[in-house]
């Protein structure tokens, strides 16, 4: 016997959890405010996991075949755990910054190619205020 209600809940939970995780990474580069506040995505993913897990439990109690529910719940849990790990742990894994020049220190010079391939050096900008922004590449 199939429990249609459990199946629907499992699919809904799976969809919510996966959408919450995927949307976080897809909107990352576009709206910095959303990226900085990841908690709604994490909460939505957690709710999705709860729904899918509840559906799995219901299917088990009903004695129905439950492979699909189990898969949906476990997959949701995995993606949600990944997002939570990324947001609350991985993104804090940084070097200490002990080697960074302190306020009042002379800024180390460098000479690097710009987006047109021309070599630019910090010395060219002596005499002006300079804001040097080190950002993450690859996005």
């Amino acid at each position: 016997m199939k429990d249609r209600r459990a199946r629907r809940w499992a699919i809904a939970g799976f969809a919510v959890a996966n959408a919450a995780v995927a949307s976080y990474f897809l909107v990352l580069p576009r709206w910095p405010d959303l990226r900085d506040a990841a908690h709604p995505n994490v909460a939505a993913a957690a709710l999705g996991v709860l729904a899918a897990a509840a559906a799995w439990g219901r299917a088990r109690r009903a004695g129905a075949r439950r492979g699909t529910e189990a898969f949906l719940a476990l997959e949701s849990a995995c993606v949600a755990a990944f997002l939570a790990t990324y947001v609350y742990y991985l993104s804090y894994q940084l070097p200490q910054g002990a080697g960074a020049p302190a306020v009042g220190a002379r800024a180390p010079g460098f000479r690097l190619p710009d987006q047109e391939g021309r070599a630019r050096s910090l010395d060219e900008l002596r005499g002006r205020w300079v804001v040097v922004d080190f950002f993450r590449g690859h996005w």
Partner: protein
Amino acid sequence: MQALEGDFRALGAELVAVSSSGVESHASLARRIGAGFPILSDPEGQAIRAYGLLHPGALPFTDVPVARPAVFVLDPEGVVRARHLTENWRVRERGERLLAELRRLGAGGRREPGR
């Protein structure tokens, strides 16, 4: 940040961005965001290392150096006047805050006589 480029210029400040990505990827980034300021390519980590920002192992299975996001404000003598080291590399410094800081430090004001 690029939206505020004009405001930085008005204060007599230059924006310089640095990442470990290649020139090609910076060229397309600059086109996409309409950046008129230099975006420097540092795949060897020359500047990233000099500023103590190397973030080893940030990208699994590669040895591409990734910089800890950070912003340094340098005065006309090339001295660091402010620095912002991110605690969390998902979050980046906001241009508006930097502008306010530049004004506070005296950028865009009258040059002190004799300097």
